[in-house]
């Protein structure tokens, strides 16, 4: 019998490695009867989707625009770059 603790581990591990079919089957049976684990599985899916969505918009350059280099850091980095210019 898989416990909820086992199932929670396998649910998140399924994102990192392929699980054998018989393990997937046992998880599926557990999720049918255990609403808590099913809910946890949805939460992990949301976490992943939320991170991906944010990263995509961050990489496109259109989120968290208020986060900037401080004036001091900008100056320091500029000076470092200038001192290395050919």
């Amino acid at each position, binding site marked *: 019998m898989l*416990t*909820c*603790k*086992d199932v*929670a*581990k396998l649910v*998140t*591990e399924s*994102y*990192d*490695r392929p699980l054998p079919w018989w393990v997937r089957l046992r998880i599926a049976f557990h999720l049918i009867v255990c*609403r*808590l684990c099913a*809910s*946890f599985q949805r*939460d*992990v899916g*949301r*976490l*992943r989707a*939320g*991170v*991906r*969505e*944010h*990263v995509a*918009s*961050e*990489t496109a*350059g259109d*989120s*968290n*625009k208020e*986060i*900037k*280099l*401080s004036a001091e*850091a*900008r100056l*320091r*980095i*500029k000076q*470092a*770059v*200038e001192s*290395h*210019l*050919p």
Partner: protein
Amino acid sequence: MPNPDQASQPHMWVDEYGDFLFRYAVSRLRDVNSAEDVVQQTFLAGLKHFDQYSGKGSMRGWLLGILKRKIIDFVRERRRTSQQASDEAGNPFDQVFDRNGRWTKESASTIRQPMDSLEREEFWPIFRQCLEGLPPRQADVFALREMDDLSTEVICKELSISPSNLWTQLHRARLRLAICIKTRWNQDHS
């Protein structure tokens, strides 16, 4: 706004790409000083290897590629110099599951609550706080895996850890994050 050719010249880099690269680095490293360091290293490495920039992709994309590399190097170094004990402190299972491997009353009541309409604008600030609350090593592997989408093979190789160690750390990170996000979201909406 300078034209693209001008923006790709190194003396313009900090003004053009500094904030973008800093934003990217700070959300992964969760520390302003560290993020400033890797951004500076990125520009200097970019200068050194400027002749390798083919001009095909965008300058920003090229610099971002260097930054990603610098972030991995930084994480490896931080891991090497930090205390091993932080991993043990990061074992959340005592509070989440009981001795028989069932959800505890407390974790069950968190998990049971609905979380249907989590918008992106709401999600990110909550997520960031929860990520900062994780043991640093767990947060680092989570960032490499889920934010930079590196394969488990690459992370294991870069950080010299075994696959099962990585799976365990990722699992702990996700378990903690899922519960933390749900807890905070429900606090905000009750």
